[in-house]
């Protein structure tokens, strides 16, 4: 099977890779590029653990083909912190203990980042519906919602 050459931007850096036509972007990110922060919980777009922002859209990377990344911009959890300075969402997830096992956390952080970019001051209900594509089995979502509310407040400078 011939590889397809793809040139893309990941977390602000240029990246080039070869992939098979049937290879998902999730497989490429994890297995070819070593971005293991992008998690696979289902491979069918139901759990959100593999969430990334593709250009300006929140997507499940398991539902995107690697070849589709050509010329696009990809943001993953690995690009959220600036050096040793955590993104406010990351900081608030820690402070609120919004993770127990943590496997869903990268997807939640990316989904929350996308949500706050579009709606900087969401209500609790807007947060709950905004994050409804991400499954967490440990927390019951309570502390996740509070962390996002707190991070939104910090990001607004309130």
């Amino acid at each position: 099977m011939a590889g397809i050459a793809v040139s893309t931007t990941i977390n602000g850096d240029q990246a080039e890779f070869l992939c098979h036509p049937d290879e998902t972007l999730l497989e490429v990110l994890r297995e070819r590029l070593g971005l293991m922060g992008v998690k696979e919980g289902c491979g069918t777009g139901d759990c959100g653990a593999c969430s990334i922002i593709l250009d300006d859209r929140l997507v499940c990377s398991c539902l995107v083909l690697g070849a589709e990344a050509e010329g696009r911009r990809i943001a993953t959890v690995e690009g959220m912190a600036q050096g040793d300075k955590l993104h406010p969402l990351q900081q608030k997830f820690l402070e609120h203990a919004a993770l127990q096992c943590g496997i869903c956390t990268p997807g939640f952080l990316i989904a929350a980042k996308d949500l706050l970019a579009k709606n900087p001051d969401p209500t609790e209900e807007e947060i709950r519906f905004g994050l409804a594509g991400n499954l967490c089995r440990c927390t019951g979502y309570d502390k996740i919602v509070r962390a996002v509310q707190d991070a939104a407040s910090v990001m607004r400078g309130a």
Partner: protein
Amino acid sequence: MTFDPSHAARSFSSVGTRPIRPDGVDKVTGRARYGADFNMPGQLIGRILRSPHAHAVIRKIDTSKAEQLPGVKAVVTAADLPDLTNGDTSMYDILDNCMARRKALYDGHAVAAVAAIDAHTARQALKLIDVEYELLPHVTDVDQAFAADAPLINDTIITKGVDPKPDRASNVSMRSQFGHGDVDAGMAKADFVVERTFRTEQTHQGYIEPHACVANVSSDGTADLWVCTQGHFVYRQHCAQLLGLEASKLRVTSSEIGGGFGGKTHVWAEPVALALSRKAGRPVKLVMTRDEVFRATGPTSATSIDVKIGALKDGTIIAADATLRYSCGPYAGSWAEVGAMTAFACYKLENVRTVGYEVLVNRPKTAAYRAPSAPMAAFAVESAIDELAKKVGMDAVDFRIKNAAQEGTKASYGPVYGPIGIGPTLEAVKNHPHMKAPLGKNQGRGMACGFWFNFGGQTCTDLNIGMDGTVSLAVGTVDVGGSRASLSLVAAEELGIDYAQVRAVIADTSSLGYNDMTDGSRGTFSSSMATISAARNAIKILRARAAQMWDIPVEDVTWERGHAVAKGETHGNLPNLSLKEIAAASGTTGGPIAGHSEIVADGAGVSFATHICDIEVDPETGATKVLRYTVVQDAGKAVHPTYVEGQYQGGAAQGIGWALNEEYIYGKDGRLQNAGFLDYRIPVCSDLPMIDTQILEIPNPNHPYGVRGVGETSIVPPLAAVANAVSNAVGVRMEHIPMSPPRILAALEA
């Protein structure tokens, strides 16, 4: 180790605070490595072929075409995993579950596996394996399997616990009975009786991380296994026994674990990965798909439970009786036994009897799921208790308070209780503002109680003090939800140093003595006990070193707030020596300073909780929305209260999912029809409200700080609390979990 009563009055300095967890930054930056996040040089990709049939004899497996596919390096079947279990039937069942031997026993049962150079080749190879099946009649329903004329799943199963011994095989592997008093005589005296049959459907633990491992077997007999597990020492035992390896030559490293809830307590695919690696002579990475996770791992029992409870006019429960049938998959289990033990554990009962039946079905092998077996029994009992309270004319909370077990009560499953929290949780609920909040149209409120035993178990911990005075804590209980934070707090507390100076790690199986797995709510309970003991052993050495540095008798040295203090008239003027100063001198005072502990952590205090739930039912669609939810639970002593709250909230959310929506749906063909998150559907963020928590602290007399396990009890009350709320809203007693919209509509129309 017994509770130090001085702690009751003492204010802890570290324990009870809420610092950020030590593994937190790695988990929010994507650096934490879970089961599938590890690769080895030269690794192959393993895949498992699974039976599409619920019950079939495996006539023949032809792997020749798969073996010839370029890129395939090994194919294994049951022939590559010979039976080395030596009469250990539970290990034989695990072996047979990992790879079917004579028969495929459920849809999803492993029958063969391949290792190939990549996932694409491995998937292709599976299609080239030819399995010849002879289909057998199957049964997936617990009541149908219990019936005398049911298709027989295992013709060697003769019901245990029945006298005289049955003369023929059945699907009932065991009968167990608990209780005391004379139930029939008691029931005859009752003024009010409630008698009903309840059903619960099978659910999955639903951890977001699929099972994953990387196995590497060398030709010299050594092996390494990287795996997501709740117990890497247990996995080592299982794998060594099933593969014929020496345990000391198999090093198992537990990855970060993406949820377990009981589902990662015994091996599934790990022996297969090791067998593939041994055959191929290369490392093999094996990661399950979500479909495989649903079809072949985990699920809890489906149940069918008859309950009969009688009360006197004054509200005293005079007799309680339950018969509980639990499905256990196609292998014998002890799930009904546990259900029968927990069913009436919240109450003080003169006459009580529970009978449990383990029922084999053609579904996946049942695994533990958070307080395994207790939620279903609590659903049946707490529903009947609610109904009985109404008949007696008492408030649901008052009725329970009147009959609640207390210190000194003989539990329905045998032992006599020490100090327990059921009464205090009920009193807290009675006085909670949630109980007084008004309800609207189509809304209902329910409450329910729950019990779990908790477990202690074998535990081994090392506490090593570095020359810079920082502390490395090596524990062997896998951290499933923040225990490294709580254990670091305990080490800091005992040594009298800052939390930030302690780093807890989960040591691999070659670096630490045996530890039981993280189950039974034992992680923080047992490892904190071992950590306290290890710290006290280290303090003995620290005191001796200080005595040596001062040249005074060790008896004159005490340990206070992280410092050696010289006592006595003659050397009272010596300035205190800090842990850091003593550690810095260790190279010249006798070498490294460490404390070790190897214990059986006996005395896990029993745990009780009471939950309150408000719901609203849409009478047009039958859909139920949870409006408000409150958890009150005894923690003994909350080491890290935020993570204790997290356990309360997480268990409640899982219970709500079970109550309202989650279930395994099988077709007439015996195949699982909803093996994915879309169709199985666990609760999402928009399904739930905030979950309020109230932590009570009734010290466990068997732990130095009074700690009780907190992980499991929170899943016990929700099925009943939600069902009582729905029943109160719609005016019909709900008897079947989950209360999905079609079931609620049917109940409304009945």
